[in-house]
């Protein structure tokens, strides 16, 4: 299955291990993710004002690329655009929903992008997790596992943009289960967290790191009280706030113990037997000692 894929800026720099591990996991499942040619930054956050058209242009231009891939024969009638980053997913899906329900807005954007083909509203923006659930299915995922994550207590962290607002979210906004099902399919144990969809402070990390470190504490302690060894996420900003900000959390809360934060695709790569591609050397808090202790890395994988 060939699917067009939008990486977004952060997956090319701070979150390289998210992309590389996702590629390895997808390939193992028979999915070829083809990067959009000439993609551009989506804007990271959506403009929420009713009179702002300009800030949706960047998102829509990316959707035009999907149409072009079909026109150029790179894809055959495949208009589902796969996104890994939760924030890019939210932005692209929101802009797409806005223009497909507002013909005059779409017309304005198309007239403005006068060197691009018109966007025809044909693209469907999908998060990679949706493809795993709806296309592959958790049963097939389970059968693809070669190195089950036995004994590893994994806590899902959804954050905001994967679930909210309701019309964009990929699962129930208040009680999601998609990551829990994935963890079980990979052979791990689910550690629930009452704060699994509590905002981490998002872009406040730029000017108000303490506010973020406080939320980091709350979220990690919520997972720890439920026995978690590790937290998984699908957002590179949540990952930065939960992972790198623990250095500040440690200073604010004496006695606080660090917990590794991973992208869900890193654990998929590990469970599928691609330890190198999982990119565990790219995380701020080193997860390798924990994974060694659990006997999940450095072992011969049965092929």
């Amino acid at each position, binding site marked *: 299955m060939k699917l067009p894929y939008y990486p*977004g*800026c*952060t997956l090319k*720099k*701070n*979150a390289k291990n998210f992309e590389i591990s996702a590629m390895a996991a997808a390939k193992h499942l028979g999915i070829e993710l083809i990067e959009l040619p000439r993609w551009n*930054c989506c*804007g*990271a*956050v959506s*403009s*929420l*004002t*009713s*009179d702002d058209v300009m*800030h949706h242009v960047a998102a829509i231009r990316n959707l035009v690329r999907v149409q072009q891939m079909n026109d150029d024969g790179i894809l055959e009638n495949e208009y589902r655009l796969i996104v890994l*980053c939760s*924030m890019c997913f939210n932005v692209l899906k929101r802009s797409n929903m806005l223009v497909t329900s507002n013909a005059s807005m779409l017309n304005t954007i198309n007239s403005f992008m006068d060197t691009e083909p018109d966007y025809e509203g044909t693209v469907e923006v999908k998060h990679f997790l949706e493809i795993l659930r709806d296309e592959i299915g958790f049963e097939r995922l389970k059968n693809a596992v070669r190195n089950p994550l036995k004994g590893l207590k994994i806590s899902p962290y959804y954050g*905001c943009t994967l679930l*909210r*607002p*309701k019309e964009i979210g990929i699962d129930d*906004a*208040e009680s999601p289960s998609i990551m829990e099902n994935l963890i079980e399919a990979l052979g791990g144990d689910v550690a629930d967290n009452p704060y699994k*969809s*509590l*905002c981490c*402070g*998002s*872009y*406040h*990390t*730029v*000017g108000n790191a303490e*506010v973020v470190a406080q*939320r980091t504490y709350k979220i990690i302690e919520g997972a720890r009280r439920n026995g978690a060894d590790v937290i998984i996420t699908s957002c*590179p*900003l949540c990952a*930065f706030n939960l992972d790198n900000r623990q250095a500040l959390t440690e200073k604010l809360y004496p006695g606080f113990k660090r917990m590794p934060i991973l992208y869900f695709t890193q654990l998929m790569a590990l469970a599928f037997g691609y330890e190198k591609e999982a990119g565990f050397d790219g995380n701020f808090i080193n997860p390798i000692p924990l994974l060694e202790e659990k006997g999940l890395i450095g072992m011969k994988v049965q092929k």
Partner: protein
Amino acid sequence: MLLEKVEEISGENLYACYQCGRCTAGCPMSGEMDLMPNQIILAIIRNDESVLNARTPWICAQCYQCGVRCPKNVDIAKIMEALREIKLRKNVNYIDVRKINRSYPQIAIVAAMRKFTG
């Protein structure tokens, strides 16, 4: 008048709010705010311009929790955005772009610039 301006920019009907406070109860940032989200709505309805100087809209991280829980489907994140925009459109920035640490992830820098600068 403020109410009209906020309604126009946000596209939201503020009179739909009946002050139940579920937005405030669910807000992960309410502890950092000087006015609670439901108080912000009330102040706007009263055309109280001082709300433009409140810390609250700048603390809102656009997590959409309030909108998900609002029994009247008021999208409060859009109202916070309208309050920010009234300032930003007059070229009053909330952060100094030159002071941003460039080692931060792009996603954080771009998002902060989109929300805090005009």
